[in-house]
């Protein structure tokens, strides 16, 4: 319960922003927050609040897994790597051969979600393959 108090602002914000299927469970001293944000901006906002309450997320008392509802087939995604190209692979996994690359900040299309980690995407150049969701941000 103490954790829910500590992260009250975060939970309240998630509710206020219309995060659907929001689940907040405390387990073994870790607060698990799951849900689907209506937009990528809401997800960013929630991570911002989390980072404010727990600077640099170093306490390790929260695991927050927020999906973005707009990330559906056909949605546009921005390649949010630091500066480098994003590898597009034949299959979901870093052991898979690279079939192409998407440039930093390039906009690609989401074809389908293989998992929370790998999405099937297509670039405007026509390259199709799997890319790590870590570097893909839905464009509103």
């Amino acid at each position, binding site marked *: 319960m103490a954790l829910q108090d500590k992260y009250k602002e975060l939970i309240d914000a998630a509710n206020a922003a219309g995060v659907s299927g929001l689940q907040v469970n405390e387990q073994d001293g870790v607060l698990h927050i799951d849900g689907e944000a209506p937009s990528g901006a809401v997800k960013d906002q929630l991570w911002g609040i989390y980072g404010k309450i727990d600077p*640099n997320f*170093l306490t390790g008392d929260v695991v927050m*897994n927020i999906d973005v509802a707009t990330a559906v087939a056909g949605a546009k995604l921005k390649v949010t790597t630091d500066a480098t190209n994003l590898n597009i692979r034949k299959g979901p996994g870093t052991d898979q051969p690279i079939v192409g690359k998407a440039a930093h900040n390039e906009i690609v299309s989401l074809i389908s979600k293989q998992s929370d980690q790998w999405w099937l995407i297509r670039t405007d150049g026509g390259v199709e393959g799997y890319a790590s969701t*870590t570097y893909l941000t839905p464009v509103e």
Partner: protein
Amino acid sequence: MKLKHLTAVVLSMGLLFMISCKGKPKDADIQATVVAALQSTPGVTADVKDGVVTLSGTVATEADKDAAENTAKVAQGVKSVVNNLTVTPPPPPPPPAPAAADADATLKTAVEGIVKDFPGITADVKDGVITITGESKADRWKKLKIALDGLKPKKVDASGLKIK
């Protein structure tokens, strides 16, 4: 005289009773023998009528079915065997519950796939907890933390991480 007569009646009744019993127990005896012989094959019941044994129930294999029939056949007094046993293989044993180690291995593979793009950071997985060590810039770590939380670990322990 009257008493003698009564005794004779009682005796003859007793004799009749014994004879009638003697015919019937035969099937019962056979059944007892067959059931005893089939004890090693559970799930099989034997009915005996006029020396004909009817086996019913379910066994695991065709071999068990034949074995039960042969066992019944050789029992004393058995004329023939009607084998109505059905073969139903036992349900396959449920797959072993995914051990924590397996879950860790899956999680570890996923974690390694993500962390390898973050030089300077190493991750370990134990009992569903991801332990992060090394050095990172704050914004890089945030990206990694978001990705790791997406794997639904029990905890992401970054107490060994230094933010540059």
